[in-house]
């Protein structure tokens, strides 16, 4: 019979650091990962004084799946479906990051039609991702109704993308050298109808939520992040643009055909939660502008390069891809010995800290690395 081990009552590594102290009103709370607002992925040890958070320590790893190790067991092609699971709210971004890095390494040219299709589906997916953020963010702040509007709009996108990809969430639509299948005949008019609908909804979103005094009170002046802090902490995407830095990977290191498209980069200098909120809601409109231009410019032609047996040179490559919640979507440092892509199993290593949710940041980060095949 096992003797009782009293140290078990002390909790884990994080909780032992949060001891109840002498202060009368101090409350220690282990919040998550099963708390509804932490979505199963995050736990935060909290020290509270009433409604004020005195100390917080985030604890990660609850849905960590070790994609890097999974990639070691698969070929390049077999690994593509994992990309739909890295950020399942914006699978297209990860499809692109992975396909783009392999294309760079193997020197595969992507046909123009595929490039435009990629832009359209990625921006549609970005809008659907932002809509989930918007709805869930307000839900967590205590407003229930907006998520119903957001999911109503998002449903239109999911229907369009379902007819393109066969999936509603975890897309595996990109392939090395293009996309897996051509878009249906009614794709262009449906995209334009959606952007028109989305634009007509944005004033209502603004009136209902953005100008709401309670939202403003809960976001303005909260979680201020200076430019220098953002840089030293490695904050990217809306986090950085909410601190006044006009940095957008689609502009700074253009991939695909983004260098041919005209779009505004939303920037707000305040550095608080409200600035980040405004950056993301403005990006809904930016994505609509990009979709309109890409649909207008969608050329005829092949939707994928004939990428059979391309020679992959040895080396490493990375593609920085602008994601929905941050800009760290970039499978990188692919390395392998010369061998054909679909052939011998590549030993691959991918690491991705799922959605590295940080308090008040909501920054998604990830990266992957592919190692050469076992002989």
């Amino acid at each position, binding site marked *: 019979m096992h003797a009782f081990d009293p140290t078990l009552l002390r909790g*884990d590594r994080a909780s032992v650091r949060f001891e109840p102290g002498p202060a009368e009103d101090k409350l220690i709370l282990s919040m998550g990962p099963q708390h509804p607002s932490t979505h199963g992925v995050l736990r935060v040890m909290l020290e509270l004084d009433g409604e004020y958070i005195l100390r917080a320590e985030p604890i990660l*790893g609850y849905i960590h799946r070790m994609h890097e190790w999974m990639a070691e067991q698969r070929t390049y092609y077999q690994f593509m479906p994992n990309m739909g699971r890295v950020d399942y709210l914006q699978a297209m971004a990860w499809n692109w990051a992975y396909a783009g890095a392999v294309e760079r390494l193997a020197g595969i040219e992507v046909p123009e039609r595929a490039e435009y299709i990629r832009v359209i589906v990625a921006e549609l997916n970005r809008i659907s991702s932002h809509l989930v953020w918007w709805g869930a963010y307000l839900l967590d702040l205590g407003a229930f109704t907006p998520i119903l509007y957001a999911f109503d709009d998002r449903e239109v996108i999911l229907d369009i993308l379902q007819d393109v990809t066969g999936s509603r969430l975890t897309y595996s639509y990109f392939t090395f050298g293009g996309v897996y299948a051509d878009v249906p005949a009614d794709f262009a008019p449906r995209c334009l109808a959606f952007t028109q609908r989305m634009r007509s909804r944005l004033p209502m979103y603004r009136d209902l939520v953005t100008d709401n005094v309670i939202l403003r009170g809960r976001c303005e002046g909260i979680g201020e992040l200076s430019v220098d802090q953002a*840089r030293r902490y490695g904050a990217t995407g809306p986090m950085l643009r909410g601190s006044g830095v006009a940095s957008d990977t689609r502009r700074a290191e253009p991939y695909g055909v983004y260098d041919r498209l005209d779009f505004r980069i939303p920037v707000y200098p305040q550095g608080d939660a409200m600035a980040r909120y405004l950056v993301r809601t403005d990006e809904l409109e930016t994505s609509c502008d990009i979709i309109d231009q890409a649909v207008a410019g969608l050329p005829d032609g092949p939707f994928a390069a004939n990428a059979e047996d391309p020679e992959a040179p040895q080396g490493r490559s990375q593609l920085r891809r602008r994601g929905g919640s941050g800009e760290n979507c970039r499978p990188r440092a692919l390395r392998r*010995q010369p061998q054909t892509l679909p052939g011998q199993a590549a030993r691959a290593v991918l690491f991705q*800290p799922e959605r*590295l949710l940080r308090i008040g940041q909501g920054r998604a980060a990830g990266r992957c690395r592919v190692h050469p095949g076992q002989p």
Partner: protein
Amino acid sequence: MIPAFVAAMHPVHVVAMDHAATGVILSITLEPARLPDAAAVLDREGYLLEDVMASDLTEGIEVQYHFSLLDGPTRLVLRLIVPHDAPDVPSIAAIYPGANWHECECFDFYGIRFVGHPDLHRLLLPEDFEGHPLLKAPEARRSLGELMPSSYCRACGLAEPDTPAAASAPAVKTGPSDA
């Protein structure tokens, strides 16, 4: 073109890289002890630390630090190699607080000990997990000479001029700490 501040890092090798193919413009190989000074130089130059990652190679464990200015193709990578039996790397978490979790990750998966880290712990795997899952069996490891582009290998002296890196490329010189 190699910026002037790179010399202040006292690099072992500096190799210009093809951004279109690799996403990086400059690869800077350092002796591990030089890392904190190099990070301080990049901090002064306004670089953002994108991530810290590692690879298990024949020569040792390679640790890579990606820095960028985010305003164009400006990414550069700092590399250093530490031996398998003493994987000690100075922490840069005091200079770049964002490195804190990256270094925990590398410790979690590769067992790299970041000396001076304020709180080195398993970031993603359970705290009672045994071992470091991305370390390879010795026979599965590859050398830098096999993995890097031949132009890089020539620039670092890993390959003879005009000959592609052979499978049995000599080990890279990584400074006095290399076992």
